[in-house]
């Protein structure tokens, strides 16, 4: 669990850290969308250069991002493998039954690999430089237009914020209960599948009980402080765009232009 880099926040004060979370969220989605437009080596080079500039601006070591890729490596290799063995066309290098390695297959495999790495890099960058709560604020702000479709945006945002707030608390609680049960002789993660599933019961039941307890206490506390639903409430954390957000948006346009020039 601790090895996972993606989804974690690394405090910092760099240019990327200071960007408005909405900018970062939109830019990340936009980048992930245009990754699929790249179809030549040069266009992938442009995309990689773009990511490298972003990483440099975040002043986070590149090793972090490489580590973010590691948990996904089997999925990536599996997909790349499928592409290599099942794409037809071009010069055939190797064939065995219906498996064949072709020129197009190799190129497609390499492209897919690049796409995976780019997407993971960008999403890692997003979570490493953005506090979960500001990310939730950004989601709320971006979903606001959905109010006209009667989507309860403020309630959804509250749910998201409470959920994010309690991830670390529940993680702590999980560790504590696991330790308490290990001290009573439970072996987590050993034995057969059935045994392992049985070992989870002494962990899950207390966790559920605890979560419901927390939920009830929190609801009472919110009620006591005058919470009466989302309508008519003010916001304490107000998001504001700055000039650097314009720069970030502008560089996305430049990146798109370069991509369009280099793709076929």
């Amino acid at each position, binding site marked *: 669990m601790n090895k996972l880099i993606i989804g974690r926040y690394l405090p910092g004060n760099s240019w990327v850290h200071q960007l408005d979370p909405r900018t970062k969220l939109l830019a990340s989605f936009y980048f992930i969308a245009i990754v699929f437009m790249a179809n030549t080596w040069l266009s992938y080079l442009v995309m990689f250069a773009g990511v490298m500039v972003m990483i440099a601006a975040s002043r986070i070591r590149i090793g972090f991002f490489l580590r973010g890729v590691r948990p996904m490596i089997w999925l990536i290799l599996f997909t790349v493998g499928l592409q290599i063995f099942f794409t037809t066309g071009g010069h055939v290098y190797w064939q065995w039954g219906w498996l064949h390695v072709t020129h197009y297959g190799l190129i497609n495999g390499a492209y897919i690999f690049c796409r995976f790495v780019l997407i993971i890099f960008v999403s890692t960058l997003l979570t490493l430089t953005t506090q979960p709560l500001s990310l939730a604020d950004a989601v709320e702000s971006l979903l606001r237009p959905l109010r006209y479709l009667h989507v309860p945006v403020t309630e959804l945002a509250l749910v998201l914020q409470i959920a994010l707030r309690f991830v670390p608390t529940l993680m702590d609680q999980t560790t504590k*209960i696991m330790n308490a049960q290990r001290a009573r*002789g439970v072996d987590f993660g050993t034995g057969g599948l059935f045994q392992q599933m049985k070992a989870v019961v002494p962990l899950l039941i207390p966790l559920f009980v605890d979560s419901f307890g927390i939920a009830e206490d929190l609801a009472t506390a919110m009620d006591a402080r005058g919470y009466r639903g989302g309508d008519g409430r003010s916001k304490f954390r107000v998001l504001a765009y700055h000039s650097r957000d314009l720069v970030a948006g502008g560089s996305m346009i430049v990146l798109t232009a370069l991509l369009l020039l280099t793709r076929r």
Partner: protein
Amino acid sequence: MDITFDHVSYTYQAGTPFAGEGLQDISVTIHDGSYTAIIGHTGSGKSTLLQHLNALLKPTSGTVTIGDRQITSETSNKNLKPLRQQVGMVFQFAENQLFEQTVARDIAFGPKNFGVPEAKANALAEQMVTLVGLPASVLTKSPFDLSGGQMRRVAIAGVLAMQPSVLVLDEPTAGLDPAGRLDMMQLFAKLHREQHLTVVLVTHQMDDVADYADHVLVMDHGRLVKTGTPREIFADPAWLTANQLGLPKTTQMAMALQRRGFKFAELPLTTTALAAALLPQLPVKAGERDE
């Protein structure tokens, strides 16, 4: 069973950018049959130290010797069960670990994990429930129908049912009412006295340290800064205040009395000691104050 720490250091999430110091170069022995109190302010490494006592955490460097088992960073997670039966741990807010349908099954859970036959485990459950001061009628109830204090007692009974020879207590009375606190602390003292159970207690209650412990470890920033008897530790109030620790209420009282002219050969740590020291001085002092 002695537990010896030999130059033990522990780093959380070693090798990642989130790494944080837990313990630094701890060397100490917790002797068989002793009652050791670990004190220190929040975040000083007390809980980290505790988790080394039954190999829930393994040292990043150095060796922990528990009985005849040596635990180093290379020790595998296998075959630690016998060790964990020997060292019973009561965690903070231990009631969070309850999960079975009935109290009896929850208490019997630990022993059964360590291979005690069902019938014997159930007998142990009955025995332990009375030991922690609950009526036998709770045995068939769901632990979630009990009050917080009763749940705490059930959880403690569940640890005692494993019949450990070392009992590790991490603030076992936090959040209990005064009567419950006293009950539990006296139960542990009784087990220590009668069954020669080694007790390791983490606490912020200096009164408990003074009343029960015979050995004190003071932690600060992951380091062991002082060890000694309660008397040695509480002899230097200025040092304790500087380390964000306090004195037992009795000792505070004695110091206040000292300023009013009472004299003590050595500062009393417990109420009985204070009373004994005051008694011979009282008639004279009372006369003086009447003037």
